[in-house]
């Protein structure tokens, strides 16, 4: 049985600098995997490689058994990969509702979309999504007026509207208050099992609240992998988080 997502020996280089260097990773269907590591470990680049933002310079990335490396980013997205960016990225001039409608894409063609009214999408479903992330009351508010936390949640809702099988979350709690982080953890936990999720995070409290298995990256490679408790006591992991008291203090 092949894994839902499988990276083997993947590399990415920028002018000779190897941001990701021989990374191998397996994620099973419905799993929530946390990806951690010190700054510059190549976590974000790893997500970029999976979703096609960066083209790998070597190795293979297989999603549902299909090789992704040769495809354009939008084709990868069509195959069921959704990505949340580190800097929240939503359509600021559009309302929350319109944002969701753009993300809701059963058909991607130009003609199909020209012949359809903008407001004909499955509105009940989209309303439920907005409710799921707590934005029911902001449906007709331009996304530019949302708070930082709400923008992050909106972007997660967009991935759900897109109905992505594999969701890549890049630092979903960055800049959030404790309460907001808690709510984001709730959202992640409720998605567990229905979607395959990879979360890149620094906040260990958050990782503990959602994660089962953690993968630690260091210098573009996988350093360690295992349950939270095991990783916390791993001497190699402690070593790379030099100067700190291990990842829990990071």
């Amino acid at each position, binding site marked *: 049985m092949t894994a839902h997502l499988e990276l083997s020996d993947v590399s990415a280089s920028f002018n000779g600098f190897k941001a990701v260097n021989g990374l191998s990773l397996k994620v099973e269907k419905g799993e929530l995997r946390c990806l951690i590591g010190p700054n510059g470990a190549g976590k974000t680049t790893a997500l970029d490689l999976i979703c096609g933002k960066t083209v790998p310079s070597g190795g293979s990335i297989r999603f549902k058994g299909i090789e992704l490396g040769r495809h354009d980013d939008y084709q990868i997205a069509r195959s069921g990969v*959704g990505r949340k960016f580190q800097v929240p990225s939503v359509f600021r001039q*559009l309302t929350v509702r319109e944002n969701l409608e753009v993300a809701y*894409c059963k058909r991607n063609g130009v003609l199909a979309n020209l012949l359809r009214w*903008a407001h004909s999408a499955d509105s009940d479903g989209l309303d439920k999504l907005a409710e799921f992330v707590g934005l029911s009351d902001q449906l007709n508010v331009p996304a530019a007026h949302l708070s930082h936390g709400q923008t992050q949640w909106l972007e997660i809702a*967009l991935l759900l509207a897109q109905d992505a099988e594999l969701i890549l979350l890049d630092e979903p709690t960055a800049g959030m208050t404790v309460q*907001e982080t808690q*709510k984001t953890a709730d959202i992640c936990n409720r998605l567990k099992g229905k979607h395959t999720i990879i979360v890149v995070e620094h906040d260990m409290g958050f990782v503990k609240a959602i994660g089962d298995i953690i993968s630690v990256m260091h210098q573009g490679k996988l350093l360690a992998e295992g349950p939270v408790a095991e990783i916390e006591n791993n001497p190699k992991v402690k070593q790379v988080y030099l100067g700190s008291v291990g990842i829990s203090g990071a």
Partner: protein
Amino acid sequence: MMSKRTMRQVFVYGAVCLAILLLPMLINDDFLLNRFARYLVLAMVSMALALSWGYAGILNLGQAMSFGLGSYCMAMALKLRTIPVHTGSEGLPDFMVWNNVEALPWFWKPFYSMPFAIAAGIIGPMIVSAILAWFMFRGRVTGVYVAIITLATLVVVNLVIIDQQWATGGFNGITDLAQLELFGITFDAYSATTYYLIAICLTVCLFLALAVTKSKAGLILQAIRDQEDRVRFFGYDVALFKTMVFCVSAGIAGLAGMLYTIVMEFASPTFLGVQLSLSIVIWCAVGGRQSLVGALLGAILVAGMQGALSESEVFLDTWTLVMGALFVLVVLFLPNGIASLGEKLAEKFGSRRRAAAEPAKRGNAISRSTKLAEGK
């Protein structure tokens, strides 16, 4: 289901078109009608630019290319229909005779057919634009660079047309044209008939463009304008969407170009000049790049003012100065043009009516969302 905003838009757009269509009832002067018809044509190009610039964020500084190509298509067809053309053997256009051309070039021949010419005037610019758009957007050229590439392309096409005098008439363009005849109707440039033709084309194009913006594709285009990458990662082929709107805009501009030849009675390289192309951007910006009807009225307003003042040399000189200043001021203080003033007014009226019911609801919403945020 139509949203309130859409209904308001349809109402405003309809009212503007109705006013345009009814104008000849008030004006009996054919010269004045010709002038207004000219403004309407310019309004059409300006509106076409708003479609690609305002809704998809593609600043096309070469909008005049499609306009000019359309106008040349019509001019070629009308040139071949003139009687005095028979100055050389086999009815060669006069300027070709002067350039010692012996036979009609092959690409002129299909223009004996008016249906072909009309199709070419719309589809030709669309094809050229499609190639250019594909070239740019596949390579993910964005923002400022799109502006530069489109401008450079415009200059290249302009240079070629001026350079190939034997086939295009060079600097002089194509002059001394016949009048267009369609379905037994003659379209004299100085007549209400031609005015109606242009007004109807404008109305049709305006509502066509409105339909594009109201479709799901229109929404996706606006999303592309905001965050291109984000749209791509939802699985849309962004380049294809941009190419589509670029081509629709080019088609409308091509049609406008054809109408311009009819109303001006000649075609000239200035129709695809940098000056005109940048003027289109001004009209669009002053009227409101994110409003089709705004861009349309912007063109009528600015071009109309220029036309009214152009009688006197002194006024025309200061006019350029005023226009430069006006443009800077609009960019600074009204980035969405005069139309945004209208929108704001409409919203104010709308919200005042709802104001009584609103506060209670809004307070409720806030308390609920804070509760959610606290995770309770």
